[in-house]
């Protein structure tokens, strides 16, 4: 319990740094803002077969994508960088430090993801007439967001523990970009060939986008989805399955990675990085 408190404190301090350090704040807001601008320019286009703005359809999907990127890519980045520069070794040398470190990163990532959600949502409600929030929508939004964090952050911790260093991040980035293309984020998934639809539906990104659309779009738009439905029970099941998978994989992988950390390993990496720098 003590480690949880320390981790929350750690996450809080890091968030405070992020919000008071302009370059970091800019980086956090960059993706949501770019997204809004692009979608705003897309507002004249319509969802095929309807008169509904494609921008309004894509905005909730973008929120879903943001969760996956922040939870997996973001956490992978934090973990590999912290391992290379010795932050993780420091945590290991401190009593309860590793637990607190992990909780700190979960706190920080959850908060930045939720912050991105709120910013996008507020701007969306103002600038996109098709986006609206009903009482039922708020409930859906809440559980989809919560499951979204659970389904992606442990996955990010697992990947971040497996990658040897930050130079391997493209190994996560590239598949994620591909996944974005087949997850119905920027265009309805029903326009893809059947087998690609199947592949897209294996991963959490499609389901997070679908859940967010269910929460924020009018009910009649479900017609353009697979089966003409928001399929919320399935959204729940698939995201829950990914959460269970991630929560089972992350602790042993993280422990194995942490066990191997030592001063000489950090020194080795520092020397190699210095060689690259010069």
């Amino acid at each position, binding site marked *: 319990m003590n480690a949880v408190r320390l981790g929350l404190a750690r996450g809080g301090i890091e968030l405070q740094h992020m919000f008071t350090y302009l370059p970091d704040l800019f980086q956090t807001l960059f993706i949501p803002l770019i997204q809004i601008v692009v979608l705003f320019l897309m507002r004249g286009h319509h969802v095929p077969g309807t008169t509904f703005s494609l921008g309004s359809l894509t905005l909730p999907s973008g929120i879903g994508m943001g969760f996956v990127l922040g939870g997996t890519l973001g956490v992978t980045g934090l973990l590999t960088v912290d391992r290379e520069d010795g932050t993780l070794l420091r945590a290991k040398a401190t009593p309860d430090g590793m637990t607190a470190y992990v909780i700190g990163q979960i706190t920080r990532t959850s908060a930045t993801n939720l912050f991105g959600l709120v910013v996008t949502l507020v701007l969306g409600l103002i600038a996109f007439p098709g986006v609206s929030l009903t009482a039922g929508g708020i409930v859906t939004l809440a559980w989809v967001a919560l499951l979204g964090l659970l389904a992606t952050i442990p996955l990010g911790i697992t990947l971040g523990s497996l990658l040897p260093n930050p130079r391997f991040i493209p190994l996560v980035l590239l598949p994620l970009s591909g996944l974005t293309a087949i997850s119905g984020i920027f265009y309805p998934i029903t326009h893809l060939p059947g087998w690609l639809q199947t592949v897209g539906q294996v991963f959490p990104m499609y389901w997070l986008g679908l859940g967010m659309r269910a929460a924020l779009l009018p009910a009649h738009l479900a017609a353009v989805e697979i089966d003409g439905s928001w399929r919320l029970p399935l959204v729940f099941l698939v995201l829950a399955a990914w959460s269970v998978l991630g929560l089972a994989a992350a602790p042993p992988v993280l422990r194995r990675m942490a066990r191997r950390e*030592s001063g000489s390993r950090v020194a080795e990496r520092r020397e190699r990085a210095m060689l690259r720098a010069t």
Partner: protein
Amino acid sequence: MSDVAAEVRDLRMRYGTTDVLNGIDFEIRTGEVVALLGPNGAGKTTTIEILEGFRARSAGQVTVLGTDPGRGGEQWRARLGVVLQSWRDHAKWRVRELLNHLGTYYARYSTAEIPRPWDTAELIDLVGLTAQADRRIGNLSGGQRRRLDVAIGIVGRPELLFLDEPTAGFDPMARREFHELVHRLTDLEQATVLLTTHDLAEAEKLADRVLILAGGRIVADGSPEELALRMSAQAEVRWTLDGHRFVHPTDEATAFTRKLFAQHGPAVEDLEVRRPNLEDTYMALVKEHEQ
């Protein structure tokens, strides 16, 4: 508190087919400053990392503060201090903020004899960073950053402190400042310290006892003075007479000098008596080992 802070018996370490440690034995008594010396690749870092609990050993018995480091829990961890050579971690944190935060981890391990953690302001003062207390860590100079590393290592008032090549890359000024800091620590706190170093003068200055590690074995164990005398008991007397420089090795430096003055009186100039030092012993032992 027990008299022995750490005990190592027949410690062996093998990486693949290479034996790095071939059965080493030593102990560190409470309150002692022990320096582990040895050429590169002798296994100094391996040894210290096994004791820190950061590396699993191949064989042998190791006890650190009464516990096997391979099985030490968080309670055990709280009694140790490890000074890490930082690089750029926590760059956005401020000095006071980080020490405050890391200090809170130790609060629950505070005891009547050892109140934990160290008061942040006092600690910052001890390592001479008061003027930088509210600076971002990324903006500290190299020397300041290393003093912060020491502060982080001791924030929990460790019963045993590990320093792995603490002054590597220091300029002479930073090195002297660091030595003064370690002296202050060992005088004030009677801290038990295990340090590794390449710098023999540093070992002579800081350590109560020196262990020399060569070829995966401890080849010497004793105070710097004992070790200095062990290989060559001979001192060197140098002097100038009538503009000529003389050098004479002798077992009896005092008697020899007395005789020298009796013979030549005031004509003897620039007298110098050089006692054998740790470096002589170190070189002799390591050379002997390499053959």
